[in-house]
């Protein structure tokens, strides 16, 4: 399967099953588009009519090049992963990551919060040290061969349980040597409780920190309010700037959510970049479609346009020496994830579980509060293996709609929670999300193409000197 598209002056051809990416001129683009359905003579006749100035020999040479790429397994590669996907579904999985919902409460009252202002549709709660410690032990007991274990402090607002976070990090670090494991901690915060002591600790211990900011003051304050209804922008932005200044080159993301209210979300991303943040993420809001701020089908063309604006601006800023990273445009074409990872997906319900403040297990943070997805607890383990099995079965090969999608090995079938909430089935497809995802991958690859072409040009110039 291939996917070809034109963007920002680039003609791009992706080969789905090998992962190869080609940049071609118009003639080669048309030859590739007709290659599978027409004989070489027919293709030659078609393109010679369209490009009368091109010598016939060039046309046949290019058809020969396409033949060669196909032989090399770089174009029109066959799908050889179906059996692997069955094996992955049957495999024994071990838990390698926990989302510790240490605080089912929050000091902000963001209207769009999927966790219902941190409460996950239940009562307010805080995780005790004893529960958290047992969760770490549960992870160590069930991680099998995994050496790297991920623990995410999440909420609500995890810093409302700051003392326990600190104690749990110390406890887990104390277990690393004895157990031969390494913990990678992440914490997501709204910034309200950031202070020097917290910043120093997070910068020392957290592999990644996610800072929630929606962008421009008026956009951020519209939905991210304190419990008294006041906007939080002025209070948190200086704290985030201070945090990032001290963060050095360690990983962090300033992460926003865009809604129907700010479909021009690139202005929010650029605003974040102008505030001095250089690792950014911006997610489309996930909410009940009846909400006034829910993204709508008619927003899609503008969303597409915004992603293109973003990609082009990032290339411009990069060239001027003040580029930034956008989470969804990060692609490592040479050392990215293996096919096993691309098929098995996010690992929710199998390798990744969420833990509530009282120790209940859910497939991931997005299922917390949905009792039909309660899987067990940290003392008794998984008590509903049939539920876990359902999650093991879900990937891009189990979803009928993914079969003909060129992007399936970039998303591995998408987010199971989104699929369930949009369609009622884990094996469904949240089409709106798929459309956005495909556009982002097109833009991300276009950036890679332009960067590669720039690097090739620089190499050429260096040789000529």
């Amino acid at each position, binding site marked *: 399967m291939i996917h070809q598209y034109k963007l920002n002056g680039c003609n791009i051809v992706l080969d789905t*099953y*090998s*992962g*190869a990416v080609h*940049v*071609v*001129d118009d003639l*080669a683009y048309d030859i590739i588009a007709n290659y599978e359905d027409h004989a070489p003579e027919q293709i030659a006749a078609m393109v010679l009519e369209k490009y009368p100035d091109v010598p016939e020999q*060039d046309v046949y*040479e*290019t058809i020969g*090049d396409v033949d060669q790429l196909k032989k090399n*397994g770089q174009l029109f590669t066959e799908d050889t992963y179906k059996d692997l996907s069955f094996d992955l579904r049957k495999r024994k999985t*071990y838990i*390698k*990551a926990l989302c510790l919902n240490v605080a089912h409460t929050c000091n902000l009252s963001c209207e769009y919060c*999927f966790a219902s202002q941190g409460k996950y549709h239940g009562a307010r709660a805080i995780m005790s040290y004893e529960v958290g410690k047992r969760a770490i032990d549960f992870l160590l007991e069930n991680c099998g061969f*995994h050496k*790297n274990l*991920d623990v*995410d402090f*999440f909420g609500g607002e995890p810093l409302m349980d700051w003392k326990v976070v600190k104690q749990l990090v110390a406890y887990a670090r104390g277990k690393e040597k004895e157990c031969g494991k390494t913990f*990678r901690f*992440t914490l997501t915060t709204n910034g309200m409780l950031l202070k020097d002591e917290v910043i120093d600790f997070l910068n020392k211990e957290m592999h*990644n920190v*996610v800072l929630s900011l929606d962008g421009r003051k008026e956009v951020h304050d519209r939905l991210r309010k304190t419990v008294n209804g006041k906007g939080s922008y002025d209070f948190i932005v200086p704290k985030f700037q201070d945090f990032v200044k001290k963060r050095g080159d360690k990983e962090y*993301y300033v*992460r926003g959510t865009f809604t129907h209210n700010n479909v021009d979300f690139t202005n929010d991303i650029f605003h974040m970049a102008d505030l001095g943040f250089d690792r950014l993420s911006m*997610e489309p809001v*996930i909410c009940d479609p009846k909400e006034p701020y829910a993204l709508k089908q008619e927003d899609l063309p503008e969303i597409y346009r915004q992603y293109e604006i973003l990609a082009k601006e990032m290339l411009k800023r990069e060239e001027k020496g003040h580029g930034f990273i956008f989470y*969804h445009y990060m*692609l*490592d*074409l*040479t*050392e*990215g*994830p*293996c*096919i*096993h*990872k*691309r098929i098995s*997906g*996010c690992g929710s319900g199998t*390798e*990744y579980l969420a833990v509530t403040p009282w120790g209940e297990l859910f497939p991931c943070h*997005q299922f917390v509060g949905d009792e039909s997805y309660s899987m067990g607890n940290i003392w008794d383990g998984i008590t509903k293996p049939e539920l876990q099995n359902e999650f093991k079965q879900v990937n891009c090969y189990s979803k009928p709609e993914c079969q003909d999608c060129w992007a399936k*090995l970039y*998303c*591995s079938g*998408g*987010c*199971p929670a989104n699929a369930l909430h949009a369609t009622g089935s884990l094996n469904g497809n949240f089409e709106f999300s798929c459309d956005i*995802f495909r556009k*982002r991958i097109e833009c*991300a690859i276009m950036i890679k193409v332009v960067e*590669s*072409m720039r690097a*090739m040009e620089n190499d050429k110039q260096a040789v000529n000197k």
Partner: protein
Amino acid sequence: MKRIVSLNTMDLRESAKHGGHGECQTSCQSACKTSCGVANQKCAEPASR
């Protein structure tokens, strides 16, 4: 090739033979939390592939 430039990319079929260590970061542990994208994850053990 005159009209086709191929970028330097990993061959996914090769990764089928040597991948699957499972030491990479869990997708949702980073910055999304509301969507799934595995392609932007980095392999934690590229040398062994």
